[in-house]
Every structure is written in structure tokens, then in C-alpha cells.
């Protein structure tokens, strides 16, 4: 090995880059190129940062979860309160010999029940504005003078009514898709909702349902976030879609009965 060592040292002196002659005798391993050292340093720094970030995200997620739980609980209480309120008001009025007139509904669910062939232009435009471009598409609509008149224009093409909490709940959970980056993305995670609507304080499905059901300040944004619902054709059939509900058909405002239709179409 005595004769071998000097030979090898000479060889390494020829091959390796930027290494001094002094430590050639001591080192057997070729020196580490500087770029690799830099890379290792950078990686170590990044790794430390990443660990911290992961912990921070975990903590944040836990806090969010608690927040969502608390909100859902509060909403549950609120819905129950709303429900009992109506009943209580009616009872109070009856006790005093009076009549309780409940507020006119603020929310409607509109379903398109006729196809796209042979539609007159005004009706076609209104249906486009309501985002009902396909048969059995459904959307939530805030009711005010303007929108009620719009619904009147397209009356023979739609079936609409006032959905109850169960309808809203089931529609959004089963057939809820969000408009994310102009794409129709399934709402499989609260993070999708939070990313898009977080700045309005809406971070989970329950928030969305609450905003829709109690037509809130951000109803327009939340409703637009929801892609129009693609419902199945009604199981058990329709009565007669060419004539109005009051005449025994399906078109037009059917107030509460829309919920039965939604159950069959969802």
C-alpha cells in the first residue's frame, strides 16, 4: 500500500477540483464541490421552515374545525328558533283572536321543466339570466319585485316554489358544485369553499346553507358560487308540464309543493 498511496494521491491531485496539495495526503475522499454544499445548506433551511409551516397549518386547521363545529351548532339552534317562532306567533295571534300573517318568502327554488327547442327570445334571455340553460336545471333565486316579474315572464318553462330547510340542505350536500376558476368542481372539502368565499366569512358547507336559506347579505355571491343544480328527471313523473300547476299541470309557482318535487328529483 506504501507504493500505492502516493500514486493515488497524485491521481486525485490531477482529478479533483479546487483541493489543496496539503490535505491531499490526509484525505482519501474527494472534496465536496461548493455547489453541492450550498444546495445542502439551502435544503436544510427549507426543511426547517417547512416543518414550522406544517405545524402552523395543523394548528390552524384544528382551530378552523372547532369554529365550524360551533357555527353549525349555532345555526342548528337558529333554525329551530325560526321554526318555533312561526308556530309561536301563530298561536299568540290565535289566542288574542287575531291573525298572524307570516312574512312573504324571500327564497325560491326554480327548476326548468321544458327543453331548449323553439323558445321565444325574451323567454330564452331570461332563462339564461337565471342560469337555467338545460332542462331540469335548478337554481336558488332571491325573491323581490324584479325577480318575481322575471319568473312571471318565463312561467310556462319553470316550476318554482319556496324550498324548506331540508330541501336546501339536501340539494347543497348531494348536488352542490362550486364555480372555482370557471370550472364546475365538486364540493368535497370545506377548503374549496373557504378559498373562494373566505373573505365574506363563509368557510364551510353549513355557512353556505345558512346564507342561502336565510337570504343573507352575501346571498348573491354565494348563489353565484353555486353552479346551477343538475337534477334528475322526477321519479314518478310529472303531471303535465305544458299547463300551469293550478290547472293540474307542473308549470309556475307551486309554493310549498316544490319540496315534494325536489325530493323526487334530487
Amino acid at each position, binding site marked *: 500500500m506504501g507504493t500505492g498511496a502516493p500514486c493515488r494521491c497524485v491521481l486525485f491531485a490531477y482529478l479533483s477540483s479546487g483541493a489543496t496539495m496539503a490535505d491531499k495526503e490526509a484525505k482519501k475522499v474527494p472534496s465536496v464541490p461548493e455547489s453541492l454544499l450550498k444546495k445542502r445548506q439551502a435544503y436544510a433551511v*427549507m426543511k426547517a421552515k417547512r416543518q414550522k409551516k406544517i405545524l402552523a397549518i395543523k394548528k390552524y386547521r384544528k382551530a378552523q*374545525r372547532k369554529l*365550524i*363545529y360551533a357555527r353549525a351548532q349555532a345555526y*342548528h339552534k337558529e*333554525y329551530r328558533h325560526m321554526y318555533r317562532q312561526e308556530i309561536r306567533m301563530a298561536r299568540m295571534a290565535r289566542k288574542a283572536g287575531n291573525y298572524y300573517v307570516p312574512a312573504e318568502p324571500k327564497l325560491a327554488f326554480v327548476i326548468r321543466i321544458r327543453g331548449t327547442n323553439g323558445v321565444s327570445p325574451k323567454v330564452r334571455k331570461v332563462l339564461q339570466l337565471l342560469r337555467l340553460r338545460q332542462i331540469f336545471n335548478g337554481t336558488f333565486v332571491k325573491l323581490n319585485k324584479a325577480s318575481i316579474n322575471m319568473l312571471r315572464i318565463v312561467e310556462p318553462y319553470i316550476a318554482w316554489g319556496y324550498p324548506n330547510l331540508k330541501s336546501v340542505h339536501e340539494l347543497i350536500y*348531494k348536488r352542490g358544485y362550486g364555480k372555482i376558476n370557471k370550472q364546475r368542481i*365538486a364540493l*368535497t372539502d370545506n377548503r374549496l369553499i373557504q378559498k373562494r368565499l373566505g373573505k365574506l366569512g363563509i368557510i364551510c358547507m353549513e355557512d353556505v346553507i345558512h346564507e342561502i336559506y336565510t337570504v343573507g347579505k352575501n346571498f348573491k355571491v354565494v348563489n353565484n358560487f353555486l353552479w346551477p343544480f343538475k337534477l334528475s328527471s322526477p321519479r314518478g313523473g310529472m303531471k303535465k308540464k305544458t299547463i300551469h300547476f293550478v290547472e293540474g299541470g307542473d308549470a309556475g309557482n307551486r309554493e310549498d309543493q316544490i319540496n315534494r318535487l325536489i325530493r323526487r328529483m334530487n
Partner: protein
Amino acid sequence: MCRGGRMFAPTKTWRRWHRRVNIMQKRYAICSALAASALPALVMSKGHRIEEIPELPLVVEDKVEGYKKTKEAVLLLKKLKAWNDIKKVYASQRMRAGKGKMRNRRRIQRRGPCIIYNEDNGIIRAFRNIPGITLLNVNKLNLLRLAPGGHVGRFCIWTESAFRKLDDLYGTWRKAATLKSDYNLPMHKMTNTDIGRIMRSQEIQKALRAPKKKIQRRVLKKNPLKNLRIMIKLNPYAKTMRRNTILRHAQNHKLKEEKKAKARAKLADKAPAAPKAEPAAKKAKTAKAAKPAAKAKAEA
């Protein structure tokens, strides 16, 4: 009888057959073709069999210019391992497809190596009968031979004096060409062509964000109304709600059973008073059952 008349636009011999090209462009093209002939990747992609040759560019002694016999030439090619290219030419000899056959262009074959020499002392006569070989004098390099078919990268075998003359013919970037009146090699488009090294450099790596290695794939949507886990993922409160409904149902069921048992017990005791007690008990039961059912409806 044939039809009458003359053809449309009869072809004339005074069609403009020739085109003029700027001299700088012509020289640029030859420089590019010569540069490509020095890159093994390009020469191989042109199809030449250069796997076993000693070096590229392949330069041979000037003695080769003095060869008189084709046998010597063949031996040289075999020793240089360039004979595989010639074998490929032999394998490619075939009949042309199309009307060219009856227009004096019957047979076609591949192009082989190109021998570039400085002085002809017999080299032309030695090599010219070997199929595929083209001979080129270095003073009169022909682009149509260096880049046949318009594709660069022909396999060139240089003699020593021919290779040395290239510096005088085309210059280096440091000095102009001596054999041309006012010419120097064209400037590079990129001085540092090692893109891998550039991308790995500190300047670029520092400015990049961290690589996103995790592939996000489409998540299958499961129905939260049927799948409890998915429901809990979206609404953690659903767990307690579900638990409460189950407990409440169990409680109601128990109460009902108790009521039934009590009513049956009462029946057993008082046989005549049975009809009165039954409807009363039934009414109490339905009232109790209706209230929790209404609550459940409100929560649903």
C-alpha cells in the same frame, strides 16, 4: 382522332432555372454544415454508421492523398471502421419508385462518407468507385455535398492538410480568413450552450420557488347524505346530531314499549275498564311521539 388545341402555358426552356444567393448566406450555410459534421449526435441522426470510428472529426494522414488503388482505399475505410457506412450504402441500393425509372434515374442509393482532401495525388481515382463516397476539395467545398437533402451532418473524413486549411479558409473568431478577402466566422447565438449547467446555477435556482412534487388528482365525490364520514368531513357537527337522533330514537322506542307494557298490564287488571284506558293511553303516547318527531323534522 385526338383532340385539338395546345396545352395551357407550354413549358419553355427559358424558364428561370437559377437563383442567386448572397455570398454571406452561402458561407454561413457551409460553416453550419461543417460544424454539424463534427457533432456525433447530428451525424448519427443523419444515419451514418459511425459507432466504431476512432474520433469525430475524423482526420487521416496526407499519405491517403497518394493512394492509387481502390483496394488501398477500401482497406483504409475498414481500418477506420467506416466500412459499416459503406455496407449500409450497399444495402440501400434499390430501384426508384415512380416515373423517374423511365427518365434515366432508375437506380438510387444512400449517400456514404465524404472524403475531403487538399491535393489530388490519386485519391480521387482510388475512392471514386466505392459506392456512396463523394470526394471534395477543401478549397471548393460544396454545400450540396456537405448537407445532402438539406439536412446537416454528413460523415466527413478529412486529410490532415485539408483539415489544417480550414483555419485559413474560414478564419477563427480571433483572426479573419486569409484565403477570403473579408470574412470571419459568424457570431454565436448563444455563447454558453450548456443549458443544464445554466439552469443549475445559483442565480437561477435562487429565484425559483420550491418544486411542487405532490400531484393533485380528481377526488371522487361521495354523497354526504349517505356516507357519514364524508358528512362529518364537511360538517363536524353532524356527528353529534346523528348521535343525538339515534339516542332520541332509542329513548322514544323505550318509552313506547313501556307505555305498551303498561297499557297491556292495565288491560290485564281491569278487563271492563279496558276500552276507556286504552284510547287515553294511546292519545298520550301519540302526543309524546309527535313532539320529538316534530323536533326531528325541524332539525332535518
